[in-house]
């Protein structure tokens, strides 16, 4: 087997809140890996820990425990200095196209910056690479001199992509890159990401709360709930047959843009609210909202294992070789 481009093992990130004894358990034991040229969609509701994983991978925040390997190399404890050359290989695209670009720089300067910082190109070469990259993301030469405030949201997101891709990284972490965009603009940015990914072959950790976006883009998905992965596997399989009760709830709650079908669907409205990551529930973290929970769920934490299918581990006591819970069929 080839070495994965990204391998995260038992990652834990606890944020210590000032003045309180407790810690926010943002990420609590997450393992995942992304192969060469693969897109992994990380989905889950607000606060489930998606962005925190992205930040740990880029070492924008220090993991509390666990490890992060990039192409087989352990980067968890590398010093800033030792990390610097590796920064060429991993890049990030952010949600907010307004605040993630320096307003004083021109588009050309923004895209040239990584080339200069890593000293990979000089003088005319820089210009050439920038021009090429801008063209690839669909921005004409006339855009080079513009500043971020003179661009639309979709154009800014293209600049963000150009900046992330200009060094031809092995891995791109994209945190909600299309969530702030209108549908029509979102469509063209998603097509662009799909094309670039296919042509350039980078691996991608794509973070989003929008299931239809991951269904379009991701080869595999990982579903998070309160700092843990509850189900992961090939996108097609999970959409066809979600096994974890939370995945089922998530898929059934996203409204379909088809009135006749949407009104006939059985939607599951989960009881209660998302518990606080300061004090997550015992046993299965989903038990306070799970419509099919049994006694064991309150005390024993289910392991993320592929009992039915090695390719798609699920963390639920009720998923066994012979049975899969179904929360959508109940009242």
């Amino acid at each position, binding site marked *: 087997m080839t070495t994965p481009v990204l391998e995260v093992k038992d990652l834990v990130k606890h944020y210590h809140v000032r003045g309180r004894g407790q810690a926010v358990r943002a990420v609590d034991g997450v393992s995942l890996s992304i192969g060469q040229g693969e897109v992994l969609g990380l989905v889950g509701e607000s606060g489930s820990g998606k962005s925190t994983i992205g930040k740990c991978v880029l070492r924008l925040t220090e993991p509390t425990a666990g490890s992060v390997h990039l192409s087989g190399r352990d980067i968890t404890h590398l010093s800033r200095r030792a990390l610097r050359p590796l920064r060429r290989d991993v890049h990030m695209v952010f949600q907010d196209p307004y605040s993630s670009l320096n307003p004083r720089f021109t588009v050309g300067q923004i895209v040239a910056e990584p080339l200069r910082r890593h000293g990979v190109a000089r003088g005319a070469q820089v210009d050439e690479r920038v021009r090429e990259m801008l063209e690839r993301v669909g921005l004409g030469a006339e855009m080079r001199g513009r500043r971020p405030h003179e661009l639309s949201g979709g154009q800014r997101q293209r600049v963000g992509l150009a900046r992330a891709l200009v060094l031809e990284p092995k891995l791109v972490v994209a945190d909600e890159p299309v969530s702030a965009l209108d549908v029509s603009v979102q469509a063209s940015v998603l097509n662009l990401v799909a*094309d670039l990914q296919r042509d350039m072959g980078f691996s991608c950790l794509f973070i989003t709360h929008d299931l239809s976006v991951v269904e379009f883009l991701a080869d595999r998905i990982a579903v998070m709930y309160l700092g843990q992965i509850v189900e992961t596997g090939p996108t097609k399989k999970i959409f066809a047959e979600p096994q974890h009760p939370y995945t089922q709830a998530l898929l059934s*709650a996203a409204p379909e843009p088809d*009135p006749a079908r949407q009104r006939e669907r059985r939607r599951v409205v989960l009881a209660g609210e998302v518990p606080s990551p300061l004090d997550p529930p015992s046993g299965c973290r989903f038990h306070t909202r799970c419509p099919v929970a049994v006694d064991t769920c309150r005390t024993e934490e289910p392991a993320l294992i592929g009992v039915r299918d090695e390719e798609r581990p699920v963390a639920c006591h009720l998923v066994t070789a012979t049975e899969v819970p179904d929360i959508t069929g109940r009242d």
Partner: protein
Amino acid sequence: MSLLEITGLKVGFDTEDGEVQAVRDISLTLERGEILALCGESGCGKSVTAMSIPRLLPPDTTRLSGSIRLDGRELTELPERELRAIRGKDVSVVFQEPMTSLNPSFTVGFQIAEVLRRHENLSRSAARTRAIELLELVGIPAPARRVKEYPHQLSGGMRQRVMIAIAVACSPRVLIADEPTTALDVTIQAGVLDVFRDLRDRLGTAIILITHDLGVVADIADRAVVMYAGRAVEEAPVTELYARPRHPYTAGLMRALPSAAVTLEDGRRRLSEIPGLVPPPYADPEECAFHPRCPRAQDDCTTRRPALDTYGTGHLAACFHPLSAAAPATGGGS
């Protein structure tokens, strides 16, 4: 007579860059007990149209003309003092960000009771009892305990329910909900949409729901108006609109959704795009505002502006070369 009738509404704002024409010309009606969706891309004028009803717009810079009649009563001519009596009582609003619209220093019970005391003259204790009932109505568990809590103690979904409770406290005839679930998670959104449906069913509240999410429209609205550049370009009962969109913009929006992706011959998955950008809100040329982005545009589209035409019961579209009923949502040339 419809509950609400907006005719020829135009709203502009004076700004340093000249007059922004937020709403160029819109007419619409709202029936009793109806859920009407206003949709379209950001900046097309959805919020300004809706906020013109209770006139929640900056008084110094707004230029508003046209007619807004609620139960036959003209609202555009009312002085601020009379409008204040209407806001929260006859017409109330739920905003997108529940945290910024609630006052952090008062309990939710106090904030609901305040509205009741102001408009309904209820006593302190009667208002408190009613506040608990309202929290129950919007599906908040343990309402007797929750009335004593402060906004920061509630989750986003619960805060939005509290906002809805405040908005419906005086049984308004029109409830305006501006992107009420956009900031919420999907599993929470489903519950909040149920609250709106329930209010309509039980109290007969008419609701104007502003959203850019076509899934939400499909789920809950009876009728939808699609706006583009400050005008309505299409309007229809929801099932009809999704089955037979006539305006190229509506069809384009539906095909651009990730769920409508198509697989190409080489195996690539592709979304249909709407090229170009929304026109700037300054000028108002005498042409179809959508023509630079429209796959069906022809010469006449650049010389005149299409008016709304009727295509079956309650279905209106403003286009010279609409899609045919037989070939829904295929777009492209004719």
